[in-house]
């Protein structure tokens, strides 16, 4: 399918409306992935419909009052000086707070996420002998760290649940890895923690329904805070 044909057939609309046959869909997709105009068109249409769902799902009452005439006691009563001056002062304070405190902090966080940096990483060893020291890694409070993890694969498991348990044994975070993922060494990026101490990565095999079957291994790790951090 070429662009003229796609335009003439209204292929973008038909694609979004699921009106193309499987063969037509495939032919259009071949064109779509290579044509920037059709790609923009379909993406814009898809986004429009997604937003429409949100908008149309909202109760009608949300939109209706906007169209009401001003009777003096409705929306425009907010413009009376008695309300407007304190309201605008409050708004200014809020805008100032957002611009001076919240946005710079968020921008810094986003910039930090995008900048390359060196993260501490732990070497995990499965089933450290009781009494033997767990591998230690020095981190800063709240700073992410890397956990290269090698999971022994077993064909009986469809997927694996990986949990980080804190010093109290409580689950700090968990995620799921497919059997395909674990064929290679996984490198997990853990969100930073606020408490130093003995942590444990616990890996459990899952069946195809996501039910936990048996524990595959435990990888203890000692998180120590760098000087100047809490410990």
């Amino acid at each position, binding site marked *: 399918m070429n662009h003229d044909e796609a335009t003439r057939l209204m292929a973008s609309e038909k694609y979004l409306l699921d009106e193309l046959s499987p063969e037509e869909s495939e032919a259009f997709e071949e064109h779509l992935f290579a044509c920037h105009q059709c*790609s923009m068109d379909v*993406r*814009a249409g898809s986004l429009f419909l997604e937003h429409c769902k949100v908008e149309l799902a909202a109760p009608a009452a949300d939109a209706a009052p906007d169209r009401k005439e001003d009777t003096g006691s409705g929306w425009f009563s907010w413009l009376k000086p008695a309300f407007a001056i304190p309201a605008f002062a409050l708004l200014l304070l809020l805008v100032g707070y957002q611009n001076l405190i919240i946005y710079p902090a968020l921008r810094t966080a986003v910039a930090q996420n995008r900048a390359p940096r060196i993260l501490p990483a732990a070497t995990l060893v499965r089933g450290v002998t009781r009494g033997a020291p767990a591998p230690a890694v020095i981190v800063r409070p709240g700073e992410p760290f890397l956990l290269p993890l090698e999971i022994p694969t077993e064909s009986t498991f469809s997927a694996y649940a990986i949990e980080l348990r804190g010093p109290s044994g409580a689950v700090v975070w968990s*995620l799921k890895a497919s059997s395909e993922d674990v064929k290679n060494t996984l490198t997990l990026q853990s969100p930073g923690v606020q408490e130093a101490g003995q942590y444990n990565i616990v890996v459990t095999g899952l069946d195809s329904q996501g039910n936990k079957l048996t524990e595959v291994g435990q990888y203890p790790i000692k998180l120590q805070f760098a000087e100047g951090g809490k410990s």
Partner: protein
Amino acid sequence: MQFHAFDKDYLEKLKSGEFRTQEHFVSYFSELIRLKLSKRMHSTAEVEDARQETFARVFTALRKEDGIREPERLGAFVNSVCNNVLMEHYRSSSQETTSDDEDGEANIPDPAVSVIDVIVEREMQRKVRHVLDGMEEKDRRIIKEIFLDERDKDVVCRELGVDREYLRVLLHRAKKSFKSEYLKKMAKQTMKR
């Protein structure tokens, strides 16, 4: 129209793992891949897994010595990789009993949402509201019943006395009105980068 040309320079940056180019590439094809997959898969978890698998394979292939060399074939290549992922999914689904598990978690989280993204989203929502407000009540009802309530299109058309052609034209017009806002969004995201 805001757009990075898929030229030799773009392909080289992509192969070398340049972050912004990769980010643009993923953002550009994600929606197309999601749409394609969601027409053929049952759960959002399956779609998300297959989307990630498609990108993983594309990036692996790109980094190979004998990987893709013609930038103009990039889109077709992504589509063919996605087709392969789908084929494998069909094969494995026919071997295993299907699971209706909807709560599977994606392994790779989406990038953090920035303040600018939130503002852009609000602007787009406002534009959609504006487009919907400009429609006749009947047209709004058609959109709602078909896309939100997911009712049968033929039944909705019959009840409201319109045909399928009317539906396409309605979507075409609405999309056209919204597209300017969408292009602004793309431009803002580019400036942000």
